[in-house]
């Protein structure tokens, strides 16, 4: 019996293809090159074949894990930032009480205020959101590239930190708390079957409790499967510069 157990999630979906019964394999290959969607993977009657079925279950489990697992404290330590949490006390609560995922208890607000530089032009912080693995996968390349880019343009960047059980609208509290002109929330985005480590950047000018959702400028799909974190960072730098200059963000920007 073979000792080796194959990790079926290692193969790219674009390479998983079943040519049996296909008249024109070249055409199918072309289609496969254009999309990571589950096409051309064969079938047995109306059902999946074994490998695609197992892969589907594996990807779904990874997506589900990405939502429910906690970001390891070691990951945060390695990033060298401090941690606070929203009013939620567990992942489960964060999912069931979105309203609590955007507000903080007083003691947490105090920590943020004490540890952060006040009145930065740009405040960047990280949130687990709906995808915990995205923090460790993207922040080490994404954050320093944004910071270096902004500093080169003489923009002051505040003290970064990590928010556990975080939703995007934490920005409404954090911006006034620290007196930040622009907030940039780097947050895990809802995973799918293709990637379970994608991140989005929500950038807004003058975030405040009564702001509109449409005031967020979003850059999504940041991951090694989507937009490379370093390239996304360079784009975010330019977006932030534009937002600072025009003093507005979101749909008002275009």
């Amino acid at each position, binding site marked *: 019996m073979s000792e080796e157990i194959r990790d079926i999630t290692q193969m790219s979906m674009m390479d998983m293809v079943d040519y049996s019964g296909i008249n024109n394999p070249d055409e199918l290959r072309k289609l496969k090159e254009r999309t990571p969607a589950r096409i051309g993977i064969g079938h047995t009657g109306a059902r999946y074949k074994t490998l695609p079925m197992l892969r589907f279950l594996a990807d779904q489990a990874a997506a589900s894990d990405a939502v429910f697992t906690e970001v390891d404290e070691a990951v945060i330590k390695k990033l060298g930032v401090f941690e606070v949490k929203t009013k939620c006390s567990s992942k489960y609560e964060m999912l069931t009480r979105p309203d609590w995922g955007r507000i903080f208890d007083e003691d947490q607000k105090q920590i943020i205020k004490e540890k952060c530089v006040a009145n930065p032009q740009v405040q960047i912080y990280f949130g687990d959101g709906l995808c915990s693995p995205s923090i460790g996968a993207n922040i080490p390349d994404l954050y*320093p590239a944004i910071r270096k880019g902004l500093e080169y343009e003489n923009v002051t960047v505040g003290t970064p930190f990590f928010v556990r059980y975080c939703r995007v609208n934490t920005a409404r509290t954090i911006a006034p708390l620290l007196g930040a002109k622009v907030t940039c929330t780097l947050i895990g985005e809802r995973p799918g079957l293709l990637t379970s480590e994608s991140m989005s950047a929500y950038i807004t000018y003058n975030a405040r409790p009564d702001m509109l959702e449409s005031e967020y400028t979003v850059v999504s799909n940041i991951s090694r499967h989507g937009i490379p974190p370093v390239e996304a960072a360079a784009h975010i730098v330019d977006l932030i510069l534009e937002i600072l200059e025009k003093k507005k963000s979101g749909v008002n920007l275009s």
Partner: protein
Amino acid sequence: MQESILSAGIDIGTSTTQLIFSRLVIENVSGFGMIPKIEIVKKEVVYRSNIYDTPLISNEEIDGEAVRRILENEYKIAGVKTSDLSTGAVIITGETSRKRNAREVVNALSELAGDFVVATAGPDLESVLAGRGSGAAALSEKTGSLVANIDIGGGTSNICYFKNGKVVDTACLDIGGRLIKINNERITYISDKMKGFLKKKNIHLSEGDRVSLSGGENIRKLIDITACMTDILEQSVGLVKKTDDLEFMKTNKLIEYDGIPDIITFSGGVADCIYKEYDDEFKFHDIGILFGKSIAESTGFKDYLTGNASETMRATVVGAGNYSMDVSGSTIEYQNCRFPIKNIPVVYVDIAENDIDSLAERIKKNAEAVKDGEKHKQIALASKGIRCPSFEQIEQMAEQITEAMKDDIEDGSILLIVIQADIGKSLGQAIKRRLGRDKPVVCIDSVSCKYGDYIDIGEPMSSGKVLPVVVKTLIFQTEEGR
């Protein structure tokens, strides 16, 4: 938001001179929350000129003034001013490009075609432009077949193989409809290459000989010659066994791709002669019609004559107007540069995740080869790059590149980087952080080029997000890999 630009294509060929104007529509095709992705979404020929005989002063010289008059008149008819043009390509093709004053003529015409111009083409690029213009490239993409386009002009035949819309090989032969010219039943001109070929084949025919369509020895010789030319074309695409005639007639290189085309399309002036019947076979005062007839009757090509080129006569000029330009990626970085930047030779380097620390050394070595002793030569640094590098790797790459190009940058050269992977902006920013705001830097991505290519970069479009780019493959492929 859509933005449309006007492009000119001008082709001065062995037999004909033509002009087209086309409209290229560019648009941001990416969705909400995505990084912009600006692409050319539509290409449309909006004006086709008459087809003119290329004016020559002698067999060695183009009549540049006459060409200019033709073009200026066409501009007037079309109602187009030079200032309306964002891009364009003037190309001199076939035998004409070997005329003594070819380069001066193109340079003199540049101002007519707007600021952004491909000055000369070369056989490889010509083959590609004709193949794209004829619709062969699109056909290969649609069908997934291996499609060969043979563009038969007056002096040369340009062959291009396409698979899935991409160029896989090119070739060029000194075969065309105007290698022999006839006027008033008398041979008035035989090209040097053809003279050599006649000698090789032991066919006695010279300028001044009488030739009559109604019969005689000499017309039979001409028919034999066109049959030979057809045979060489068949050899070139692998339909019949190769002989040394093929080698003799090659311009620069032959097809090396292993595989017989599924579809062959014909374009160029002679292509029309394949499909049409003519009463007077010397109507064009050359052997084009006889040649076309010979192809139509050939056994090798018989199965391929489906007539599916969407452009025949105008394939090259449509290719020049529509397909020479592309746009860079939409996340790029540039500063302190005046555009257009033209005819920059490409220095290619490989970059892998584990060999960035030796990048500077390799850049210097490869740049040396391209500069060939010329110290102050502007070069473009090209690489496939790394698909998803870490921040550390970007910093390292920037460090190595600025180190390797130190002297060039001091000399006032533009630090010009062309990367295929989508990392142009991050690399560009990292480089700017090292060089400061004064040095000219261009760092673009999503453009692939290789050793031996030349690159033109035009003025920024789409509110500065993208740069138009023309990659010119001028040098014979055999030097590849240096």
